[in-house]
């Protein structure tokens, strides 16, 4: 399915570049035009106190506006600026980083692409959320946002699929998700 993978990422990038973050839901500025990363747990928002981890999910820190600002440059936080459209376990908490997979996993070619605002340099970036595949779920730092998420019958905007489905060598076991910068959004 290489042609489909290339088409998917290419189309998503193009659309992300064409689209301003203004006018989208909430303050995230996310454009969820690509595909999702992993079957997600529909967590109860606000169930855990700010800055704590949920016992069952290993949820990364997140909370009210004050707390979000504190974590905006923390790659292991759901509030990290690149994570404006993240869904899944953060690879930075699993032996990888925001742009690399943990040892022994394979990066999926299929991605969910978002456009995120970097408050440090004031630019918007196209961010690609590639999955790392081939090992059991990492289980650390689960981030789950459903902005502009669609049901399973609109696959490339649905975060309920395991997108390791399209990976090559390692097949479908999902481990964690990255947040690679693709380009500056034009």
């Amino acid at each position: 399915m290489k042609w489909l993978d290339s088409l998917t990422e290419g189309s998503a990038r193009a659309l992300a570049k064409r689209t301003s973050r203004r006018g989208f839901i909430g303050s995230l500025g996310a454009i969820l035009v690509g595909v999702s990363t992993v079957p997600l747990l529909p967590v109860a928002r606000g169930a855990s106190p700010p800055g704590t981890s949920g016992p069952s999910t290993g949820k990364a820190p997140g909370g009210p506006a004050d707390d979000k600002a504190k974590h905006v440059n923390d790659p292991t936080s759901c509030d990290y600026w690149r994570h404006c459209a993240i869904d899944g376990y953060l690879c930075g908490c699993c032996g990888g980083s925001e742009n690399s997979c943990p040892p022994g996993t394979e990066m999926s070619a299929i991605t969910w692409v978002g456009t995120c605002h970097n408050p440090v340099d004031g630019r918007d970036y196209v961010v690609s959320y590639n999955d790392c595949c081939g090992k059991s779920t990492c289980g650390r730092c689960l981030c789950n946002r459903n902005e502009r998420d669609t049901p399973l019958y609109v696959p490339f905007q649905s975060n309920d699929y395991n997108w390791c489905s399209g990976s090559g060598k390692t097949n479908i076991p999902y481990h964690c998700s990255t947040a690679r910068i693709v380009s500056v959004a034009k």
Partner: protein
Amino acid sequence: MKSPRWVLSAAVACAPLALALLGPAAALAALPPDPLATVQSLPRPASPHWVWVNDFVFSHMVSGKAMLVDGDSGRFLGELDTGFGSQRVVLAPDGQVIYSPETYFSRGTRGVRTDVVTLYDPSHLSPLGEIVIPPKRSSNMPMISNAQLTDDGRFLLIYNFTPAQSITVVDTRSRKFVGEVETSGCALIFPTGARSFFSLCADGALLHTVLDDTGHASKSDRTQPLFDVDHDPLTEKGVRVGDTWYFVSFSGMLYPFKWEQGSVKLLQAWPLLSAAEKAQSWRPGGLQQLAVHTGLNRLYAIMHQGPLETHKDPGREVWVYDLVRQARIQKIAMKNNSGSIQVTRDSHPLLFSIFIESTVLDVYDATTGNLLRSVTDIGTTPTVLVTP
């Protein structure tokens, strides 16, 4: 409540008297040895108040399972191990077999992938056999519509996503893989009759497929778009009463699709929420957010307050509707967060409720809404509930 000290004191005081009355032989009678290798089995037919709690064990997805609980007693009756990313078990209408679409790798999380439908004996919860199917089964948040039987029980249908979309057809009579039905652009399975089903399409259309006696597609029709995917999409968590499937939109509109004279028609959609409730941001949510009781013609919907992007969030209320009058008749306050609900089919129905981040199964009287019992420690990440 009596204090432990009081109970202990009373027991010590009464013991000599009891021994004197019973005599030394009775007091010292030895227990018989327990038989070796006793294994429980389950009666048939299954109780209508049993529920299968499916669990895809998100922290360790190769170890999916399905757990059987008796709603009347709260007893944990047994378990099936259902492999990687398991979604749900499918119960044969005659109760003679349990079908489970499963995925395995030859080396745990690596090696050769094999997808099978495992057939389980409902009395002993042990495998009867397996049917190898193409390694294409979709890995997604578990949905009831990932796998369905045709109404006559003859063909088992399984949704594939590679990410090309199709549906695997298994003949339950010959216990063989029959073939695949292509459903490009359309997902999941919603049976409409003895040999037919529809899938939901990305443009809001429905793809309706009829199978022939061999399980191959003999007819395939695609409707015009019937709902607005861009502005108010329907969740894929549909429920069925007779010849009508009900889907709720993100904003709380209920869409009835009726199977009539060989095609699917959209009846008039109606709101589950009043204008005032919408203004207060009430909306349906959850993984298995709707349930129905066919005999009572009632719809149960998990409700919570939140913005649009909370459409999968759990709720602390279940609202009950009369589907004939199209009116809400009851609100049930839930003890715990509710993400998945199911109602038993009998005339004294139970309402089961669980949430993927919890492991407590709550059991309610589905007519009064009274909480009957809570069953703790059910799995790890429980997903969808299946009743006989």
